[in-house]
């Protein structure tokens, strides 16, 4: 089952139909176990108290936001270079999910920082780069909506996503540099307080649960996108089918014009 075999949408849909139930079960199970560990097993942090539990939402969604953008970049290469047909579909299906998880990462980050800084929003290096990432996601979604023809929209989005990928790295660096210029390094370093194994396990479980959730939602959203394209194609055929029928009567009179 090479990647190209997956190119056939019908085979892809069959695969999705088989895999999806298992994925849903796995996601629910992982979430349940993760939440249990997050709330009942992980110890209270001596310094931050209960708020450290927010990390189990913040860190997985932040990782997912970046992973989703990387996946979109890969799909962009797939659609531009290998012209893999489902790459466009996967890139378009992933954009809203990426935006949602970036927003979740931003919100949980702000809420996590509130007890420490006293305000919801702080121009902390990581939060700022996620804010810029969110603007990029929303720009890409707007670009998808702005172009009607799916083939052209896919190529144009692939270009912007690839240019964006280089920029995410530069932004991360420049924001961190800019941040140290204006402010002492904030408490939430990416590692946070030294990761103690009792926190690591719930974190890993929640991260796994979030990834499974993402894959499930992404497959379902790709299925929707394939259906959307089918509808568009059938509507176009309905439009082009009508005159053809009538014009065939006209050409009957003409000698040549074999169909």
């Amino acid at each position, binding site marked *: 089952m090479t990647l190209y075999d997956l190119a056939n949408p019908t085979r892809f849909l069959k695969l999705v139909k088989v895999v999806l139930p298992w994925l849903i079960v796995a996601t629910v199970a992982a979430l349940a176990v993760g939440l249990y560990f997050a709330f009942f097993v992980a110890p209270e942090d001596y310094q931050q108290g*209960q708020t450290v*539990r927010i990390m189990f*939402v913040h860190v997985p969604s932040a990782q997912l936001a970046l992973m989703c953008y990387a996946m979109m970049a890969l799909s962009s290469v797939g659609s531009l270079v290998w012209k893999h047909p489902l790459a466009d579909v996967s890139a378009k299906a992933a954009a809203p999910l990426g935006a949602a*998880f970036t927003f979740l990462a931003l919100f949980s980050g702000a809420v996590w920082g509130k007890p420490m800084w006293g305000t919801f929003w702080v121009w902390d290096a990581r939060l700022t780069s996620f804010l810029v990432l969110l603007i990029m996601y929303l720009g890409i979604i707007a670009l998808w909506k702005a172009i009607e023809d799916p083939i052209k929209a896919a190529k144009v989005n692939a270009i912007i996503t690839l240019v964006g990928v280089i920029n995410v790295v530069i932004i991360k660096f420049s924001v961190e540099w800019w941040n140290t210029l204006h402010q002492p390094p904030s408490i939430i370093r990416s590692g946070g307080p030294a990761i103690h194994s009792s926190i690591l396990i719930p974190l890993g479980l929640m991260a796994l649960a979030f990834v499974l959730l993402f894959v499930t939602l992404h497959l379902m959203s790709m299925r*929707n996108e394939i*259906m959307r394209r089918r509808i568009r194609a059938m509507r176009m055929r309905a439009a082009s089918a009508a005159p053809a029928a009538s014009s065939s009567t006209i050409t009957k009179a003409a000698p*040549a014009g074999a169909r």
Partner: protein
Amino acid sequence: MDFSEFGRHAEYVVAAYAMAAVVIGALIIWVRTDKTRLEKELQALEASGIRRRSTRRAGPSVSQATSVPANKKNEK
């Protein structure tokens, strides 16, 4: 571990998980409603008789262009 000794910042933890639930819930609902709406539309289109290509698979695609030899009088 019950909720009473959740400490002074309980509302923030609750807020974060609540928002997570809201966002994930919204995504799930969005995907499901999209699916049903699209399926209904697909059914409607198929019901309206737009035959799909494979049911009337034509022979090898007929050459679309027929050249008429040079200097023929240009009759339409």
